[in-house]
């Protein structure tokens, strides 16, 4: 896919947010909060940053790869995959329904194009991404591996096992991003289990860390990803601490854990869609 310009990326983001809300509403389940919060990130990756082929190939030789560790935000990923041509946008209708390829959490079992490993049980994606990055090194494939994790997810021990490993093995073709929305299921992360200074922690483990302070501003997200990219290949894995707002784009959903995993009612959907322009045509 050709790199889309900023104005187009912003348009796509609005449509992706509509898709997320309509998918979750239709089945009255799923996770809109961080899906909305990570929309700019996904759109920037798939429509501008990554070298990838929507004619999906599991091995992805010569392509940049993306892994989603916080699998519950599948709505944003499915929308972006559909909108970038991996499968028809029409299929978004089947999200979480019986016999769908669009499982509640991303899966390979039903062969949905774009998915390379199942996720949903938190804490596992970084390890898989590191493995893929090392496989690329063996193959002398100089593309980049991307992975997204949640911030609450940082509480899982496996994240830190992987973190230590990647620095030790100089996995420098890897850009990990943390969706730093400061929310998780039971409340704000600082109340549930304080993450304290994440940046210092990752740096202490030997990573190159950049912060994207405006994770819902497309320009800032692009700038962050460009910077992260420029830091690859220098002997250290790269972490992008992406400050986002859960529920961004819908005034009554923004900034609270309450929208982590519930669906809007009919009226709430209507209200929310009124705040988001239909730019590419609803599915």
């Amino acid at each position: 896919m050709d790199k889309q310009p900023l104005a187009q990326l912003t348009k796509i983001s609005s449509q992706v947010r509509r898709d997320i809300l309509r998918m979750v509403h239709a089945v009255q389940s799923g996770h809109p909060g961080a899906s909305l919060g990570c929309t700019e990130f996904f759109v920037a990756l798939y429509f501008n940053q990554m070298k990838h082929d929507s004619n999906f190939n599991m091995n992805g030789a010569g392509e940049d790869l993306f892994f989603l560790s916080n699998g519950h935000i599948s709505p944003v990923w499915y929308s972006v995959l559909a909108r970038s041509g991996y499968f028809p946008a029409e299929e978004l209708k089947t999200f979480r329904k019986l016999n769908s390829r669009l499982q509640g959490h991303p899966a390979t079992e039903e062969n949905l194009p774009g998915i390379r490993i199942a996720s949903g049980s938190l804490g596992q994606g970084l390890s898989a991404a590191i493995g893929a990055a090392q496989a690329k090194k063996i193959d002398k494939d100089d593309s980049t591996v991307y992975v997204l994790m949640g911030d609450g997810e940082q509480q899982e021990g496996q994240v830190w096992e992987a973190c230590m490993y990647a620095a030790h093995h100089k996995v420098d073709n890897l850009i990990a991003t943390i969706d730093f929305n400061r929310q998780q299921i039971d409340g704000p992360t600082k109340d549930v289990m304080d993450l304290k200074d994440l940046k210092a922690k990752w740096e202490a483990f030997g990573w190159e860390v950049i912060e994207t302070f405006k994770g819902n501003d497309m320009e800032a997200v692009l700038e962050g990803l460009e910077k992260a990219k420029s830091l690859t290949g220098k002997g250290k894995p790269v972490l992008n601490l992406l400050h986002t707002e859960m529920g961004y784009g819908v005034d009554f959903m923004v900034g609270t854990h309450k929208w982590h995993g519930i669906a809007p009612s009919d009226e709430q959907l209507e209200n929310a869609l009124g705040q988001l322009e239909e730019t590419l045509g609803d599915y």
Partner: protein
Amino acid sequence: MDKTLDLKYTYTEKKDTRSGFGDGLLEAGRKNPNVVGLCADLIGSLKMGAFQKEFPERFFQVGIAEANMIGLAAGMTINGKIPFTGTFANFSTGRVYDQIRQSVAYSDKNVKICASHAGLTLGEDGATHQILEDVGMMKMLPHMTVINPCDYNQTKAATMAIADFEGPVYLRFGRPSWPIFTPADQKFEIGKAWHMIEGTDVTIFATGHLVWEAVVAEAMLREEGISAEVINIHTIKPLDEAAIIASVKKTGCAVSAEEHQLNGGLGDSIAQTLIRNNPAPLEYVGVNDSFGESGTPTELLEKYGLNAENIVKAAKKAIARK
């Protein structure tokens, strides 16, 4: 379901079994100051909020760190404390198997591993969360008691009973709203099968949500002139072998019904018991070596062959093999 069915047990209300756990935990906490709770960022889903509110000093939010939670619970048992850990069944077992094996089961710690959202009926979240192997993993562990109650009332009673019981326990329950058809004042006896319906042609051994499907199946079979015995196996380990053998001696064949893989589940435990003591035809109702998927609980029970109709079919097959 056919409205005209003459059911031996009926219900006026539906509720999730996890609420039975939450309410049982609160009562156990009121009765016994040694009861402590731990949860890994799922307080609402596990219905542990009331306990947390009433006993904040005896409740610990662990964050999304299940392995740590099991280790904490094992350590917390010193001086008589009784830790109840709460998370989804997948993250209560497979995620932390070695922690349970070494720190809880082998070390024989009085930890109650309380697991919600077990099986297919959690619905739309799909296969990553729908664990169907947990009973197998847990029953293989020496020292471990495995309990899978059938409705809100039985889950509440079981939760209170395990607080009074010394030893590691795996308590399995679920997410969906489900008929409440057992009495509120029941006495829960760990390891004692409950004869719910007497019959002569076939015995249906059911556990968890599928006990309700077995009750429906019994009425369907009766309409066709088949007399089925229904036994509620809320405790999968230790298994009430005497009750199983006695019933199958009478009926001559059996069906097992569970929301779990056929490999390693209740059916396998019953098969072992029968083979050793009283060989007889046994048909299995359960998931046949596949993962689940997203869908509604009813759709999934139908697609994976776990509802009353499937129990009826299995019963006829077992009878034909006599």
